[in-house]
């Protein structure tokens, strides 16, 4: 029997639901960004909000990414809570001055006088030829800057709970949504709830290896973990959820047990979250691992557009399984035995997806 306190929904609707709850509970919450009131409602995440809360609180804007970030900061200084949305992370590169020189430092540089409770939703493009400037995963950049919080929920439950936490957090929070996760489904509570911005989640228990993961790689890691079970390899999957602050405690506890570490990162490799995790673990205890630490990331190249090229770099459970076997020095022939079939199209979130964006 379905629980009447829960509802079946997808990630984008969970975002929409969180926004609705926040706006209903607090009239100081406002929501703006290119297209938030248009017929597509930013992949459905903002659909209906203008009607419910009025055009003063929910509005479309000019293509002025930098100023709009500053405008959000200014509004927040008068105690509004702004949720700003960008359809791609890449567009937000125009706003680094406002983000880094103002938002991230405001609280500190004026001696704790006034903080900037602004939530910046950034959608990460993936697949269907998004190409070099519509697919960047820049969590490592944001995480590098003191004063910012960075979250990357991997499922509808966390999406709602973390968006609510972000909106009520007194600091600027970068809320990264992978485009493909918008389609993922789950049954989540109807009511308001918060997922804290400092706790990773062990999404699968295990004892042979720790897989630290984020965003769309978490569902893949879970699938990988299940396949690995068939080979009697018990992996523990940790979904970071929060990239900054990062929950090193949970990671460390897990590694103490498994003595093996694979870090998955959706972004470029050099100077990344994956580098930070491995270094932070090993500088405390450099002998903790049985085998060398390892990481799977997007390669250090701009992402090409061609279907024929992305297919070589889009990571799924297959690459994760293969890497785990490498780390544990297990013969690759077992991989074949798993008979994992690749989906026909690596560049779509699901079979129904037909483009164009």
């Amino acid at each position, binding site marked *: 029997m379905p629980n009447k306190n829960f509802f079946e929904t997808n990630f984008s609707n969970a975002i929409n639901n969180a926004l609705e709850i926040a706006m209903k509970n607090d009239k100081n919450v406002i929501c703006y960004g*290119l*297209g938030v*009131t*248009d*017929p*597509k409602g930013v992949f459905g995440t903002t659909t209906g909000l203008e009607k419910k809360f009025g055009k003063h609180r929910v*509005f*479309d*804007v*000019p*293509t*002025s*990414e*930098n*100023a709009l970030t500053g405008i959000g900061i200014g509004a927040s200084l008068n105690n509004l809570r702004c949720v700003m949305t960008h359809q791609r992370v*890449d*567009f937000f*590169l*125009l706003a680094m001055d406002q983000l880094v020189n103002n938002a991230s430092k405001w609280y500190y540089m004026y001696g704790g006088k006034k903080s900037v409770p602004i939530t910046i939703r950034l959608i990460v493009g993936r697949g*269907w*030829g*998004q*190409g*070099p*400037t*519509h697919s960047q995963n820049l969590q490592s950049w944001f995480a590098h800057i003191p004063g910012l919080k960075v979250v990357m929920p991997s499922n509808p439950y966390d999406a709602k709970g973390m968006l609510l936490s972000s909106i009520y957090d007194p600091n600027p929070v970068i809320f990264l949504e992978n485009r493909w996760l918008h389609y993922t489904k789950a049954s989540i509570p109807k009511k308001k709830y918060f997922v804290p911005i400092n706790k990773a989640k062990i999404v699968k228990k295990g004892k042979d290896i720790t897989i630290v993961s984020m965003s769309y790689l978490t569902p893949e890691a879970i699938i990988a973990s299940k396949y690995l079970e068939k080979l009697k390899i018990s992996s523990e999957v940790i979904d970071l959820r929060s990239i900054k602050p990062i929950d090193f405690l949970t990671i460390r506890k897990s590694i103490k047990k498994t003595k093996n570490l694979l870090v998955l990162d959706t972004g470029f490799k050099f100077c990344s979250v994956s580098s930070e995790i491995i270094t932070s673990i090993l500088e405390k205890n450099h002998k903790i691992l049985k085998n060398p630490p390892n990481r799977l990331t997007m*390669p*250090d*190249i*701009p992402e*090409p*557009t*061609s*279907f*024929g*090229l992305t297919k*070589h*770099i889009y990571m799924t459970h297959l690459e994760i399984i293969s890497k785990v076997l490498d780390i544990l020095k297990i013969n690759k022939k077992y991989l074949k035995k798993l008979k994992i079939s690749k989906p026909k199209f690596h*560049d779509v979130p699901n079979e129904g997806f*037909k*483009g*164009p*964006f």
Partner: protein
Amino acid sequence: MKLNLLKNIYREFFRIRTIEEDLAKNYNDQKMRCPVHLSSGQEAVAAVFSNIVKKRDFAVSTHRGHAHYLAKGGNLNKMIAEIYGKEDGCSSGKGGSMHLIDLDVNFMGSTAIVGNSMPIGVGLGLSLKIKKQKGLSFVFLGDGAVESGVFYEALNFAAVKKLPVIFICENNLYSVYSSLEVRQPKNRKIYKLAREIGIKSEHCDGMDSLKIYKCLKRTISETRRGKGPQFIEFSTYRWREHCGPNYDNDIGYRTLKEFEFWKKKDPLSKLKKLILKKSPGQKKSLINIELSIKKEVKESFQRAKNMNFPKKSSLFKDVYAK
């Protein structure tokens, strides 16, 4: 205007239209696996431009750049191949529809971030001046780009340095599904704004090939004579959805009435009528032009479909130049 010129414009126009419409037709095969932004309806400016611009001139464009690439003389086969993600695409499959380039004709690039090819075009203009090279730099932009700070910075610099740059703004009233009123102040005239920034500037009907010709011709020849940068705002309208192959008059951000108002202005059929009125004997000739273009375009698609994807080894190639 001379008949020959009119026919040349018609040829270019019909070709661009055919290509865009064939992209739309073929898109649902799911073989072009990248976003495409079609110019159908608003190609007149590009078609005319094509008949005035010189090969040595530079041009840069936007996400909606097919027409400009073609009008500048860009290679059709390489463009279609690029949109299909193929090895022989103009950007080797790495850029897709939004990143076109053809150095053979000085089309220096279209980019996918609103506004961000504008300073690049200005930089090309600067290089012309510094190197004392002949030629102009053309910068295509949409009405949405006008909202980006870089629009203003780029124009300001072009004005300070009096660069041989011509900005061609295609105001099609929309940025994605957003109408001008939520993005720019009421009564804003983009061309007047450009003028106040310090650039000679005017407005022109972008649905009338003759007016476009007159305007571009004068403007370009002035700038060629060293009169400094210019800005032209063309009023125009896109027919299909912002991104993708379909019509989207049903989703509610614009009215069917508005669409039909603009559709009726179709400058391609107007131009055809004009030619035939001027010289009814041209009918056959126009049909021949159309047939040969249709054939060329069809073959181009066929060829692109049969091409290879880039080799895996090219993935790590060209991250750095040597």
